[in-house]
């Protein structure tokens, strides 16, 4: 074959337009990417593979050119790029029909749903991750619960949810959303969760890893577009949670009732549908209220924007309050931009 490989210039609208129209034939949409390589014959694209950080996606090859080794060539280039950038653990998002190809290239399946497959390869894997934490925290013999939380920032509402949930299980694991897409950075949110739960012996706070609501499991949670894509990825994310995290003896996943945010509400609905398949129960805990209504992190951020510190104090524990007093830079940023999270 006389095809040539070309790394696209992502600044060029013309090149991106061509790639988009190629992907369109495969019902693929182009979302965030930082690298794209295509195989061409003359001016015509016959295959493509892109990536965003350590996530490979937008992989497609015209049917008449399949089985000629093009996949291997494209994948090698993208794998080299990711490795050069220091990503030694990579993921592939694709259609379930492509699973055989990637299995033969050394990728391992994390989860398959009706519409998407997520695979991984590299110096670690979900199997290693699960068995590591099971061993490290001896989670094997207890009945455990879990909450996935962003806590942007940690409020009395979060604290109440954790206290309530911790009474219903032997051990409660809090997975702190690690993806830095929020106003408050992960490091700070994580620290506040630890401080705010110090008084509870059976609570363990862990980073959420790549496997819960990350760019890998859930790209659209951060993009917030297209309802269909949202439920597709919610189903993937929750199937991963149900299948893999039930191996940590997590029997109940707790969530706060969500009267305010429609996306989170939709996520909770999907949870109800998916988790029971893996023997996991979903418990929805009503929100804690104070005299001005339901406590939520978004209200805290709104109050911070207006410097209403006396009211902030009614929404957050002392640990968070003390932190906020020192968080000038973040609050200045908060005032400048509107963030959804």
């Amino acid at each position, binding site marked *: 074959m006389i095809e040539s490989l070309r790394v696209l210039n992502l600044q060029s609208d013309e090149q991106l337009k061509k790639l988009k129209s190629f992907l369109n034939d495969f019902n693929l949409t182009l979302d965030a990417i930082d690298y794209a390589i295509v195989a061409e014959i003359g001016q015509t694209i016959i295959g493509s593979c892109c990536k965003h950080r350590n996530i490979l996606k937008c992989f497609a090859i015209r049917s008449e050119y399949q089985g000629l*080794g093009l996949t*291997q*060539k494209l*994948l*090698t280039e993208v*794998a*080299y790029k990711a*490795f050069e950038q*220091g990503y*030694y653990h990579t993921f592939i998002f694709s259609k379930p029909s492509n699973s055989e190809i990637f299995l*033969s*290239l*050394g990728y391992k399946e994390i989860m398959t749903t009706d519409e998407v497959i997520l695979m991984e390869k*590299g*110096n670690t894997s979900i199997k290693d991750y699960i068995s590591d934490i099971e061993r490290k925290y001896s989670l094997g013999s207890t009945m455990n619960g879990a909450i996935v939380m962003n806590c942007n920032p940690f409020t009395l509402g979060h604290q109440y949810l954790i206290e309530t949930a911790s009474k219903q299980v032997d051990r409660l694991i809090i997975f702190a959303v690690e993806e830095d897409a929020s106003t408050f950075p992960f490091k700070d949110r994580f620290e506040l969760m630890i401080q705010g739960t110090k008084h509870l012996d059976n609570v363990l706070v862990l980073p959420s890893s790549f496997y819960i609501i990350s760019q890998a499991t859930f790209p659209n949670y951060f993009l917030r577009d297209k309802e269909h894509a949202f439920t597709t990825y919610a189903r993937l994310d929750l199937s991963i949670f149900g299948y893999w995290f039930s191996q940590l003896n997590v029997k109940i996943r707790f969530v706060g009732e969500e009267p305010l945010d429609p996306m989170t509400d939709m996520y909770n609905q999907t949870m109800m549908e998916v988790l029971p398949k893996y023997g996991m129960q979903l418990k929805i805990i009503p929100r804690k209220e104070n005299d001005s209504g339901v406590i939520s992190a978004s209200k805290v951020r709104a109050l911070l924007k207006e410097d209403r510190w006396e009211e902030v104090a009614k929404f957050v524990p002392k640990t968070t309050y003390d932190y906020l007093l020192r968080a000038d830079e973040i609050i200045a940023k908060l005032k400048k931009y509107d963030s959804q999270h």
Partner: protein
Amino acid sequence: MKITKPAQAGTMESNDIYVQLLPAEGEGIEIRLKSVVIKQFGKQIRKVALETLQNMGITECLCLLDDKGALDYTIAARIESAVKRSL
């Protein structure tokens, strides 16, 4: 000698092997092999890989191998390239 700088060599194409060398977290040389012919040649591939690394004086590294049916000298050559790139 330890591998301190990650390096790669080879491709995922047929009859080749894709080698990734990373600093080891544990001790010694750890080889993780994926191969289309692991049942027939898994042992032999590991042996060639380990010998090549040892001959080059490597004592500690994580070596990830994706084999697509490479012959022994291909395996040795790819590993040698990766080691040299890591120095």
